[in-house]
Every structure is written in C-alpha cells, then in structure tokens.
C-alpha cells in the first residue's frame, strides 16, 4: 500500500531540503569566519542551481504531466488522485522561483557581509522557503497546498526578524506575522468547509464536485460560497492584494532588502500559484462566485497600490506599493480565467516578467542601501552619473515596471494582460488598469528622473560593492533585457501552463 515515489519528480524540493540541512550542519560545525559566510552562500547557491537543473531536466522531458504521491488504486475509486504533479505550470513556477532565488541569494551574500545577521539561519530559512515555493505549484491537494504555503510563509517571518537589535525589523516581522497567521486561519477555515462539502481534498475531485454542470454538482449548499471566499482570502494575503495589502510597505521597509525582494517575488509567485490552482483548477465551476470578486480585488489592489506608491519618499516603500499594484495587474487576467483559456498563461507571463524587473530594482536598491542610511528617493539623485551601471539598471527596471519602451518587457506584459481582459469581456477592468498604468508612470518616471539629475554634492562613497552584488544586478538586468527583446520566450514557457 506504499505510494510509489518518483524521486526524479520531487528532486527539486528534495535537493533544496537537503541543502538546507547541509547548511545547518555546516553552520553548526564550521568555525565562525568570514570565509564560512561566503562558503555557506555558495553551498546555498549550489543547492538552488542543482534544483534548478532538475527543473530544467524535467522540462526537457517528454512534456506529459507526470505525477507522484498518488492514492493507491484500491482507495481512489477509479480516479487518479495525485498530490504532486509536475506539468508545465509547475515547471514554470518552480523555474521562476529558483531563478529568482539565485538573485536573492546573491543579494543576501552582499547583505550578510555586514555581519549583523546570523548566516546559517539565514540561508537555512531561505532554503526552507524555497522548498515551499517549489512544492506549492506542484501540489494538487489542499493538504499539500496548505503545508507548502505555510512553508513559504513561516521562514519569511523569521528572516524578517533576523536582524537583531533592530526594532524596525522586528516590528515588520510582527506585522507580517499577525496578518499572515490571521489570513492562514481564515483560509484553513475555508479549506475545512470545502473539504466538508466535497469530501475530498484532491483538487481534481473538488473540481468535479463543484462543477455545476457535473454529476455531483446538482445541488450545492450555499456555504460553498463562504468556503470559496475564505480560501481565496488566504492567498490574497500572500500576494498582498486588497484587503490584505496593508502589511506590504511596512514589512518591506523593515525587513532586510533581500527579504523584501523575496517577499515581492518568490512569496508572491507562490501565492499566485496557489490562487491559480485553487480557483482555476479546483473551483472553476464556481467562477460565478469568485470571478467578480477577483476582478474587484484586482481593480482595488492596483488602485490602492498605485495611489499609495505615489506619495512615498522611501525607495523600498515605493517598490512595496508598486509591487502591490503589480499584483493587481497579475490578478486581472484571473478574473476572466473561467471564460478565456489563456488567462492563466497571461498571468504567469506577467509574473515572470515582473519577477525579473522587480528583482533588478531591488538589487540596485540594496546596493544603494549599503551607502545611505535612509534609502529615500532623494538618495538616488545622480545615481546614473555616479554609478552608471547601477543607475542604468535601475532606470531600465523602473521603466520596465512602468511599461514604457525601452522597457519592452513591462510594456508587452501589460499588453498581454490588456488583451486578455478585453477578450474576456472585462472592459471596465481594462479601463481601470489603464488609468492605473498612467498613475504608475508618474512615480516610476519621477524616480527614474532622479537617477539622472545631478546630485547637489557628490558625496564620496567609500563602499565597494562585492562582486555578488553586481552579479545579482547583472542577472536581473540580463533577464529583463532578454524578456524585452524576446517576450515570446516567456509566452512560450507560460503557454504550457495554460493547461494546468
């Protein structure tokens, strides 16, 4: 009765977990030296790259979805009920998360060079988060989904608070924590309701039960709606959408910047993966319930994010709210996912592109944060003249986020979304999004402008960023440029996921 385990399929999270264990051991037994710090970073990096290698190897397999952790046939009543499925959707998300993780680790190596943060814990927690983030898109039952989601969330709290003696950091952690646990509890209540109605936790089975056209879905109790809404709420938190958006800026500002990058990309990707799995894969029959909610949440999210971003002076806060707004854009196609088949692919494509450009921005912001205490927008004045590489990268990424040429990646990403929601018949959402794009243009442009206006006094910056910092910046920039030149790459990748 043992479930057969396909170790090749679970290799990516497994490798990460082993790497986490290894990091912990090394940290415990190696002497505390600067070299150890770098070594741990490299081990982490190696683990992530190996995991990424497995993802790529899976991607070059025969392409058919493969699954493991399946219910033995004797118990499954004739259906294939599997908990862990590797298909295009999974691979895209896992690949994106891992690629982003590479950048985040490189950023961490810069951040940790300061020595204020315990290194072993840091990498260990980072890897734990990644295990969750890689597992989440492969999960096909509610249990695995919940566990993976928590695995993504919990280490991040600790990461946020890891800067000891920093009140802002622990304040950020508390805020993140409180909102997170509450939303988790809400989601779990929803999950329990769905389970009670459907009698199964497998998404495929849920899909059958909740399909109004299906055999089982003739008469569903009204509590289904409650369950759907509550479950969605949990994921809405992870993606920092309204009404669970308020934590974003405070947490991003208080947390170390690599963690903010992690929150804004990896954790958000995981949230979206979960949301897509639950809403589109399991609850597509209930689209009548959730589609309008998603649309409204999306509209509110982008509006709130943009309006709040406009009045920020702190760079990280601005990025935080802008990433909230971007969440709204990513969410928008999901509102029409039930009617248009490509919507999931569009959201994913936007997410991938967003990941590249946002990481680029964060990488540069982290560089700047090493020399300025407050990291406000004014500190960026003349950056492109002082440090042309950093300045131009940041400018490019901001322009990308704004969706302007030459940041074509962002532009095309927005165009994908526009097309999808217009095709899906949510014209009003497109209008809201257009207005928001305009608002977004304002603050991105203002920031970009500062990069090029000469600073009043060219303050001598003694800080020489380590090579890892430049590597992080370079990688993110390369990805953003690549996506600008050939967005089709992303589309090809994510169209795989449309079926998922």
């Amino acid at each position, binding site marked *: 009765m043992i479930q057969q385990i396909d170790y090749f399929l679970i290799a990516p999270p497994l490798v990460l977990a082993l790497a986490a264990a290894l990091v912990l051991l090394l940290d415990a037994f190696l002497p505390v030296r600067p070299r150890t710090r770098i070594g741990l970073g490299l081990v982490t990096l190696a683990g992530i790259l190996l995991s990424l290698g497995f993802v790529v190897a899976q991607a070059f397999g025969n392409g058919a979805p493969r699954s493991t952790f399946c219910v033995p046939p004797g118990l499954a009543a004739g259906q294939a009920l599997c908990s862990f499925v590797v298909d295009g959707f999974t691979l895209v998300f896992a690949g994106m998360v891992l690629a982003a993780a590479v950048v985040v680790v490189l950023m961490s190596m810069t951040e940790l060079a300061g020595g204020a943060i315990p290194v072993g814990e840091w990498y260990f927690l980072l890897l734990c988060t990644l295990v969750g983030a890689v597992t989440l898109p492969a999960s096909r039952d509610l249990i695995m989904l919940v566990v993976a989601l928590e695995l993504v969330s919990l280490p991040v709290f600790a990461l946020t608070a890891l800067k000891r003696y920093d009140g802002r950091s622990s304040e950020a952690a508390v805020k993140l924590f409180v909102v997170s646990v509450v939303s988790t509890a809400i989601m779990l209540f929803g999950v329990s309701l769905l389970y009670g109605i459907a009698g199964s936790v497998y998404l495929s089975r849920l899909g059958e039960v909740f399909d109004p056209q299906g055999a089982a879905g003739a008469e569903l109790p009204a509590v289904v709606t409650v369950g759907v809404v509550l479950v969605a709420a949990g994921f809405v938190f992870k993606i920092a959408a309204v009404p669970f958006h308020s934590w974003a800026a405070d947490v991003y500002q208080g947390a170390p910047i690599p963690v903010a990058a992690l929150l804004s990309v990896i954790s958000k990707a995981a949230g979206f993966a979960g949301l897509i799995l639950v809403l589109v894969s399991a609850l597509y029959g209930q689209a009548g319930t959730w589609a309008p909610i998603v649309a409204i949440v999306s509209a509110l999210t982008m509006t709130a994010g943009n309006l709040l971003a406009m009045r920020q002076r702190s760079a990280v806060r601005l990025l935080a709210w802008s990433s909230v707004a971007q969440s709204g854009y990513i969410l928008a196609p999901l509102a029409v996912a039930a009617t248009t088949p490509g919507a999931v692919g569009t959201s994913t494509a936007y997410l991938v592109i967003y990941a590249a450009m946002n990481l680029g921005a964060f990488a540069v912001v982290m560089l700047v944060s090493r020399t300025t205490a407050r990291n406000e927008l004014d500190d960026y004045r003349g950056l492109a003249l002082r440090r042309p590489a950093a300045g131009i990268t940041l400018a490019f990424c901001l*322009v990308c986020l704004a969706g*302007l*040429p*030459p940041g*074509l990646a962002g*532009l*095309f990403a927005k*165009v*994908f979304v*526009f*097309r999808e929601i*217009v*095709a899906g018949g949510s014209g009003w959402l*497109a*209008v809201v999004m*257009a207005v928001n*794009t*305009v608002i977004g*243009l*304002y603050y991105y*442009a*203002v920031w970009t*402008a500062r990069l*090029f*206006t*000469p*600073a*009043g006094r060219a303050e001598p910056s003694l800080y020489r960023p380590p090579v890892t910092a430049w590597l992080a910046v370079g990688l993110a920039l390369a990805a953003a440029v690549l996506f600008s030149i*050939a*967005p*089709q790459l992303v*589309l*090809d990748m994510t*169209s795989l996921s449309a079926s998922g």
Partner: protein
Amino acid sequence: MMGWIPVALLAVPLLGALLLILAPRTFRDVLRTYGLIFSGVTLALSLALLATFDHGGPSRMQFELDQPWIPGLGLRLHLGVDGISLPLIVLTALLTFLCFVYLCWGGSRGFMSARPRALVFTLLVLEVGMIGTFLALDLLLFFVFFEIVLIPMYFLIGIWGGRGRRAASIKFILYTLLGSVVMLLGLLLVWAQTGTLDIEALSAAHGAGMPRSIQILAFVAIGIGLAVKTPMWPLHTWLPDAHTEAPTTGSVLLAGVLLKMGTYGFARIAIPVLPEGAAAVAPWLGAFAVVGIVYGALACLAQRDLKRMIAYSSVGHMGFVLLGFATLTPVGINGALFANVAHGLITGLLFFLAGAIKERYHTSEMPALGGGLLATMPRLGSVLTFASIASLGLPGLAGFWGEMLVLFGAFQPANGLPRGLFLTYMVIGGLGAVLTAAYFLVMLSRVTHGRPRPAPDFHPPDDLVPLDDHLIHEPPDERPVTRLGSPATATLVPADVYRHELLAWTPLVVLILLFGLWPGLLLSLTTPPVQTLLGAIS
C-alpha cells in the same frame, strides 16, 4: 528588393549607441566625429533609400520587411516605406546629421563639453526611435518606437537643458506618457476588434469590421495620444517649456521631427484605419486646430523669449497641419503633409538660429537682446530674417504651400463633413496666417532691426556652459533678469556666423527654397498614397 535599407537605417545608429556603451573608453577621443560618422552613414542610407525608391509607385509600400517578433501577440517586425514616410525619414536623418555637424565643430562652447558620450548616445538612440516610428508598419511596433523617442528626448532636455529643465522635462514626459497610454488603449482596442496589428492590412480594410462607435472611441483615444505629441491646442502646454529649456539640438529635433511623429500618426494610422471615426471626429479636430492656430499666433505676440515664441509658432503651424487632416480631402491632407515637412525644415532652422543667438548673448529674451542684429551680425540676422519669412508663409518659400493647400482643403471638405463649419475654419485659419505674419514681423523688428545695443550680459566663453550642477538648486523658471549696468562689454561683441553653423544651416536653407519653388517635388510623393489611404472616404 532592398529590404535591408530600413533595417540598416535602424541598425546603424543603434550600433553606434551600443558600441558607445559597451566600449566606453575607446571612443573618448573621437566622440565628435563618432556621432558625425554614424549619423552620416544613416543620412547616406536614407539618401540611398530616396534614390532607389520607386518614384513611380509611391503609394505602394516599398522596402518591406516582415518578420514575426512576438507571435503570441501577433507582433511583427514589419517595416516599410511609402511616399508619406519617405520624406520624413530623410528629414529625420538630415536633421540629426545637421545636429551632429553643429555639435562637432561647436567646439568647447557647444554642448559637447559636458557628458559628450552620453549626448552622442542619446542623440543616436533618439534617431533610432524617430526613424523607427516612420518605418513601422505594425501598430505595436509603431507605439514602441513612438515611446522610445521619449526617453532620450527627456534626458536631452533634463540634462543638457536650460535652467528650468527639470520642470520642463518632467512636464514633457508626463504629458506625452499620458497621451501614449491613451493611445495604447486605442491601439489595443483596434487590435481587439480586428485581431490584427498590421497597419497595411488595417488601412486596406478601411475600418471594415469595426462598428462606428468603436471607431470613434478608438480614434479619440489614438487621436489624444497623437495630439499631445503634435501638439494640439489644449494639450500643447508642455511644448513651450520643453522648447525653451531644451538645448539647441533638442529643440531642433523636437520641432523638426518629434512633432511630425504625431501628425504622421494621423496620416498613417488614425485616418486610414478608422475612417468612420475620423469622419465623426473631424469637425472637432478642425475646431481644435483652428483654435490652436489663433491661440498660437496670439501667444506668440505676447512672448518675450525668442525660443518660446518659436515654440508657440509651432503650435500654430501644427494647427494648420491638423486642420488639413480634419478636412479628410486629398488636398487638405497633402497640404498637411507638406506643411509638416516644411515646418520641420523651417522650425529646425529657426531653433538653430535661436540657439546660436542664445549662445552668443546667453539669453533669448528679446528685450535683453536689443535690436539691430542685422547691423551687428549681418549674416546671422539675414538667415534669421529668411527663416522667419519662410515660417510666416511667404509664397515662394516652403512654408507657403502647405498652409495654402490646407486652406483649400478646408474650403471644400470631404463629403459628409459640414461645409459651412469648415468654411468658418478656413476663414479663421486665414486670420491666423495673418497673425503669424504679424508676430514674425514684430519679432524681426525687435531683434534684427532697430538700434543695436551692446549685449549686456555677455560672459567669456568658458563660462558659457549652462549645465553646472549648482544651477539645479535654483527654483525652476525663475530666470534672473539680465544684470543691467554691467560695465563696458561693447568690445566683446560675439562673432557672426561660424563656419560650422553655416554648414549646418545651408542644407536647410536650400531645401526651404527648393520646396518653396518646386512644391511638386514633395507633392508627387505624397499625393498617390493619400489617394489610396482615403479610399474609403472619397
């Protein structure tokens, strides 16, 4: 075919820009000639384009290149040239080249002194965007190039501009960005309705498959985006600031090419693709256009600053262009296109001159300049006089034909348009032309004639560079009035026209004369494609 020329037109300046980034130190010493070479090659290519262009069939797309780029969006790398875009491409290449000529021998007094590498880079990228806009035959591609232009122009104003550059550049970019987004929405609307982004196919369809309401909506959206760039009357407010603060090259390219991109968009996309929408909106467009003409002229009369005045004159001229489009007749549109090119040449020249004056006197305030330019600097004064007269539309010079044809077009607008209304427009437009003449003459009388007055605010050349960093701390737009009573500067009268200036201006003067005397040269290119574009209306 010679499909490679359009690509080369884009590739050469792009290559120049990239080389500059990738090997920053290599070209430090040859920067002046560097830009000159790349833009020269581009100009040569555009001339080759002109030479090999099949003048027998200007309405046909030539040198076409059609490669898929992003199949997922249906976006194709679709480039091509026809009679409408050809003159603009050549104009762009020419003006860019002239700008480099101007910079190359401008010596340390020119803007080459500060961040020369970035300046060359910016101008080359700008050229890519401008040429690309005129070449693109795909809606999104058009938009991309249209937007690419913004960034370098923004930096051109924001870094090398005058004292109020920050405010001006931000105003510039915000206006145009907002317009662009609206335009993008319009383009996407068209796309969502027809499912294609191909401009050729769309114009061949003449709006088939799009209901009238959608067409109107799309036309308004696209039109707003283009009108900001053009600029049309209520959306023009960024223009005077941008022009005033931009460096000479920036002003020249802004007036000479960037404004054309807006009007080109009307001719290439808005009118042919959305004929019904155009027909419905045309009266409004005309109304805004004539308001722009009159407003521009009146505003010019009130200006003290030379550059600002020329900028406002652009508003008026572009009003004529828009009025031409609004008529929706071949005559009117031909006139519009002609006026377009002519304005590019003339205003380009005017801004060169204004820049030269500002360089000499360190101000472009007309009262501060005093008068008697013809006496103190006869050659500069005479070129200024020539350009002003061309701009006010003296018959025999390029400025005349376009405006005349536009007024003709308004006299007999397309079927379905209210003729009485357009007659009114014609009358007002004519009045505007008179006013144009008035303000140019007033300007000439103040600057070129009158009693010469020693330039009171002349600084030694090494102090000339207007972009010292400390300037940024001064509040924008609070230009200090010239320091009066500074002692004995009469001996330091700046020189008359330099050789490099002459080199940069002569081609423009020649072309103004050429088109003025032989308008058919240009009209033969534009007429056939206009006929086909208007197939649905006429």
